[in-house]
Every structure is written in C-alpha cells, then in structure tokens.
C-alpha cells in the first residue's frame, strides 16, 4: 500500500525526534553536574540526523546515525571551597548551553507535532478510501 508507507516514514521521524528530545533532556538535567576535570565531566550530546531509505524511491525516512559529544570547551569556575575543586581551585561544569538546548527542544517538539499531523491526515485519507463507493 502506498499511503500506509507514510506511517513508516513518519514513524522513523517520530523515533528520531524523540531521541533528539531525550538528548536535550539529558543535557539540561546535567547542566550543573560539577566535576574535577574535563575528562570526567559530562559532555553535552548532540544527535546527527541522516536520511533513511525505505522501500520505494519516494519513501525517505530519517534516523539518528550517531550521538556525538559537543566539542566546545568546558566551563571552568573558580570555586576553591567546592568539594570537587581541583588543586588550583577550579570546578569543571559541562559545556551545556541552556539557551541552545531550549531552542533545540522547541524545534524537536514542533517537528514531532508535524509528524503526528502527517499521520492523522494519512489516517483520515485511508479511512475515506476504505469507505469508497458508499
């Protein structure tokens, strides 16, 4: 069925967008996780989207090909009294940018809603096709 393969396409996008939302949630949750050094600190994660070929040439889904660490530098704050401060008195905080994450979250949520709309439209089209001639 041609129309029902839209469910596969939209389904892959729903999965991908929810993974993106999950990564945003992890980043925001760990925005203030302090650490002694950059190696042990939490690194902000980013998802990489890639086109996924499904069956026919028309159907192009999307998948998360990789979840990568954000290469931007860590935030170091001078807090000598902090229990996790290093020898010089600096504490390392993750390179999470809350503003970027919030924007990313809204974008993911909008894309997710778009996919749900696509599925609802397709569902109503299929239902109308089933009642053809009545």
């Amino acid at each position: 069925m041609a129309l029902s393969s839209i469910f596969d396409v939209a389904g892959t996008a729903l999965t991908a967008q929810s993974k993106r939302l999950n990564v945003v949630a992890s980043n925001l949750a760990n925005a203030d996780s302090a650490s002694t050094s950059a190696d042990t600190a939490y690194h902000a994660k980013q998802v990489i989207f890639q086109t996924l070929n499904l069956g026919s040439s028309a159907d192009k889904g999307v998948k998360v090909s990789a979840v990568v660490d954000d290469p931007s530098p860590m935030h170091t704050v001078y807090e000598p009294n902090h229990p996790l401060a290093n020898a010089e008195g600096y504490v390392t905080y993750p390179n999470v940018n809350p503003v970027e994450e919030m924007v990313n979250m809204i974008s993911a949520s909008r894309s997710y809603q778009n996919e749900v709309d696509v599925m609802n439209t397709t569902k109503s089209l299929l239902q109308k096709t089933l009642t053809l001639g009545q």
Partner: protein
Amino acid sequence: MNETLDGVFHYYQTAISLRSYRQEVLASNIANADTPGYKARDFDFGSALNTALKQPLASMNAQSGNVSGGLAMTQTGHLPANPALSLSDAGHLPGNPVLDPVGHAMAQASAKLQYRIPSQDSADGNTVDMDVERTQFANNAIHYEANLTLLTGRIKDLIAATTS
C-alpha cells in the same frame, strides 16, 4: 456514457495513485525537515497524470506480473495464480485487476521527481521549507479526498444505472 467500466475507473485510479504517491514524497520531505543536506523533492502532478494516462491499460497490466511476483508457471497446463490471461486480441479486456502495487509502479514510472528550488537557503544544505511542504501536503490531501468523492459519485451513478 459509452465507455468501458475499466475506462471509467482508469482515470480516477491513475489520479488517486499519483496523489497517494505525491503524499508519500511530501511526507518524506516533512520527515527530513531537520536532516542536514536533505534536498526536498516533488513532482508536477499535471504532467505526471498526462504521462500516466498515455500509457495503455494493457501495458500497465503487463507490468503487474513483475510487481506482484507471483509463482512461476512450470507447466504449460498450469493456471496462473492471479488470472493474468494473455491479451491475444486487441479487443480482449485484461483479466487482471489493477491492484495497488501496479498503481504504485505506474506512479513511480510516470512521476518525475525533481528537487525543489529553495526560497531561503540554509547553512546545513537542507532545502525543506516547512511552510511550503505543509501547504502542499494539505492541498494534496484535499485533492485526494476530492478524487475519492468524485469516484464515489461515479460509482453511485453506475449503481443507479444498473439497478433502476
């Protein structure tokens, strides 16, 4: 109404197949709205419909053998599983009902997918403009429904003609 039943349905079937194919293409564009480097695609419905309608019914049914991939006939006496009778005479009607895989193959053959020209370029090379895609998606859905309504009307006419 001096046309065959096949002829009556052929036009609507072709249009609906192409509409559902276009719906797939547009859904793929919407799904890839955030994929870097993805190029949005679409096709010209009018010219695709013209191309598809120029294909004779018989050639479409010949394609169906390849698409549905039925059992191989090892003996000449075997009857085919799906009754694809050979069309030895031009007057023969194809015995094989045109099922969806055929419509899909037909749509793929006649619809020439083209890349959309972006109105605003993006840094990641993605050319999906959500406003355009959503508008076209809704537009295509309405046309699909309109086709169904017209076809239903046609079926009702035929039922009225045969039962009165």
